[in-house]
Structures are given as structure tokens and as C-alpha cells.
């Protein structure tokens, strides 16, 4: 457990010292949110309708942008081999790295989402659902993304391939996540979408570390 926490702490401090940590992610969300009205026009009702889906899509994009560094840096400087040789099972190491990744990308967005939603004129009634659904659902971006990141670790130009690999894995999460918020806005029973989102999240929590570790072992062998 202490090794697990040490790995999380290491990745967090790396994120803070090298990449600006969660603030870089927030800056990304702010810029894409500013681009949306510039692209589709500043009609408030149009923006309001698109807000929930757009914020979920930008959460997926933010994960895509940062995922290719998830194992890449460790594969390059050899610390991945050290992790594989250590006492901590590789599955737990993958989970720790996912946790650190989520803390620096998914969590900040979930907390900042109400402000961005306000800028996009999202109808009242969806704010609680937005934060809750992002808190529950965005870990899948880190977890499922880790499978793709592990498969492309050690490749010189893995970034583009990575987005192709993980896009199909992101499809259900975006659907259920945006569905939760839309249902809440429409005053419909949002339970089904939210429960499915939570189920996807738990499913990914169990399976992604296994698949990610299996993929990493290929590159280490």
C-alpha cells in the first residue's frame, strides 16, 4: 500500500512540477470552452443545449491529450522496468498511475464544470448531475485510456494511434455521461443513465489494470 501511495505521490509531484498539474488541464477546458461559441455562434439557447455533451466531449479530449505521456516517460527513462521489478504488482502500478492521472485531469474538470457550464448557458437543474456524472464517469477516461497508453508505450509516435485505440472505449462513457445530465435537465428519471455510467466505471476499474499490465508486459519482455 505504501508503494502504491508513493507512486501516486511521485506522479502527482511530477505533474505539478513539470506540467503545471491540474492547472494545465483547466486551461485546456477554458480554451476549448471559449472556442465553442466562436465556432458555432453565440446563440445562447444553442450553446445551452450543447453544453452537457460538449463538456463531456472536452473531458474525453483532455484525457486523450495527456494519455500518451502516461507510460511514455517511464518507458523512456527506464523507471517502467523498475516498477515491473518491484514488489508492487504491475496491475497496482497501472492503477496508481491512473489515479494520479485522474486527479490531475478528471477531477479538476469535474470541479470546474459548473463554471464552464454557466458560461455555456446550461439550463439550471443539470449542474448537480454534471458534477456528479463527471466525478463518477471521468475515471474511465484514465482507466480505459491506460490500456491504449500501455499498448503504445515505447512507440515513438504513439499519440495519434492512441486516440484511435481508445476512442471506441470512450463511446459508452460519453453517451451515458451526457445522457445523465440531459435527463436531469429535462426533469426525466436520470437514474438509468447514471447507474449505467457507474457500472461502466466499476467495470473499467476492475478490468483496465489487468489489460494495461498485460500490455505493458509485452513491451517489457
Amino acid at each position, binding site marked *: 500500500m505504501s508503494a502504491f501511495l508513493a507512486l501516486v505521490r511521485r506522479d502527482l509531484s511530477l505533474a505539478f512540477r513539470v506540467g503545471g498539474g491540474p492547472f494545465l488541464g483547466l486551461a485546456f477546458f477554458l480554451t476549448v470552452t471559449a472556442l465553442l461559441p466562436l465556432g458555432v455562434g453565440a446563440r445562447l439557447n444553442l450553446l445551452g443545449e450543447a453544453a452537457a455533451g460538449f463538456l463531456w466531449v472536452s473531458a474525453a479530449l483532455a484525457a486523450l491529450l495527456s494519455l500518451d505521456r502516461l507510460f511514455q516517460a517511464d518507458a523512456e527513462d527506464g523507471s517502467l522496468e523498475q516498477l515491473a521489478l518491484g514488489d508492487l504488482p504491475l496491475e497496482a502500478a497501472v492503477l496508481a498511475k491512473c489515479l494520479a492521472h485522474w486527479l490531475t485531469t478528471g477531477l479538476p474538470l469535474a470541479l470546474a464544470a459548473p463554471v464552464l457550464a454557466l458560461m455555456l448557458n446550461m439550463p439550471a437543474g443539470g449542474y448537480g448531475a454534471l458534477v456528479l456524472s463527471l466525478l463518477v464517469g471521468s475515471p474511465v477516461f484514465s482507466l480505459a485510456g491506460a490500456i491504449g497508453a500501455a*499498448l*503504445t508505450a515505447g512507440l515513438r509516435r504513439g499519440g495519434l494511434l492512441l486516440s484511435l*485505440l481508445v476512442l*471506441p472505449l470512450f*463511446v459508452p462513457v460519453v*453517451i451515458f455521461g451526457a445522457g445523465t445530465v440531459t435527463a436531469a435537465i429535462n426533469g426525466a428519471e436520470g437514474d438509468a443513465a447514471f447507474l449505467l455510467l457507474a457500472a461502466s466505471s466499476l467495470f473499467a476499474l476492475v478490468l483496465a489494470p489487468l*489489460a494495461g499490465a*498485460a500490455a505493458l508486459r*509485452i*513491451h517489457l519482455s
Partner: protein
Amino acid sequence: MLRYANPKRFLDLSAALLPWLWLAAAGLTLPGLYQAIFLVPPDYQQGDTVRIMYVHVPSAWMASFIYGFMFVASVVGLVWKHPLADAAAKEAAPIGAMFTAVCLITGALWGKPMWGTYWIWDARLTSMLVLLFLYLGYLGVWAAIEDRAKAARAAAVLCVVGVVNIPIIRFSVEWWDTLHQGPSVVRFEGGKLAPSIDPSMLWPLLIVGLGCTLLFFALLFVRMRTEIRRRRIRALLAAQAGG
């Protein structure tokens, strides 16, 4: 099955099988398509555009069937580390991607006169598109990793992950579709394949479907034979360079 997994034995066996496979594939597909294009009566609503179905539906079957085939080959490759299984999965992927693309393109061509649009975000269309992404990602992994053995295992892991995900994607997309779709959009009902279809239209469809399956195996065997020889040449060149 592993008895036939020896590359030499596979080369002998496939050489003997291939002419018959080609013959059977052509013998089923061509008359089936002839029937579909010239003999099958036009649909009372869709008119002559119904003939697109005879290419479209078998392509859709093949797109799913080939991914399933790749899954089996990938699992065999992962468990027994057998190079022939890896080659089978690798060489099946481009054929599967082709059938998926044919399915999407013929569907779009049919959709324009029937639905008035080339593309709608219908559940079936969307899951087919995602399947195409899965194929492309699989091909991308093979292309990106230089070491063949590593590429085989990475692609196999991806294929297995994809198969685990296909039902979830399928389900989520259908759920999303019912949530968002207005009543005005024409639906691609599964009823098209239901027994309600007239036998005169059903038989050519089944014949073309079977013909496409044989065509797949014929193409697969040719590709696998090429791959085995490519490996041999590479090994010979490496030995030459080394010695």
C-alpha cells in the same frame, strides 16, 4: 487443430484447398449477385434500391464474423503463442475492414434515395462506424510496432479488449439512439431480415452471404501464404546478413 498449425503443413493444405475455395466462392457469389441484380423482383416500396441489400447485408455479416474470427485467432495466439494464429488474425483484419467499409458505403448509397440522407446517427450505423475504428486501431498497432512478436501480442490484447467492449458499445449506442431519436427518422428495422421477407429475395441473400464467407477464407489463405513466405524471406535475409 494444432496439428494443422505447422506452417509447412498449412502451406500444403491451403494449396490443395485454395482452387476449390475460389471456385465455390465464385460459384455462389456471382450467380447470387446475378439473381439479386436481374431476377429478384423490385421491392414494392424501395424499388430497385433493394438490390443494394445483397451487397450491404452480407458485408455487415462478414464485418462482425471476421472480428469474431480475429478474436478466436488472437486468443489462440496469446495462449499458445502460435505464429500461425497471429498471422491469421493479422491477415484477416484488412479484409474485415474492407467489408466494414463496403457495408458503410453501400448503406450510405442506399440511404440517400430512401432516407434522403447519406448518413444518420442511427444505432446500427454508429456501431458499425465504431467497429471500423476498432479494425483501424488493430491495423495501426501492427503497423506501429516493429518487433513482429510484440506487435502480435499487443494487437491480440487490443482485439480481446475490443470484443469485451463491443456488447457495451452496442448496448450504449442503442440506448442513446432511443433517447435522442425523433419519430421522424426512418429506422433501419431488423425486420428486413425477419422471416417476413419473401423467399425469392431471401435465397439470393443467403447464397451471397455464404459466397462471401468462402471468399473471405480464400483471401485469408492467400494472404497467410504470402505472410509465411514473407517471414521466410526475412529470416533468410537476416541469416545472409548475419553470416
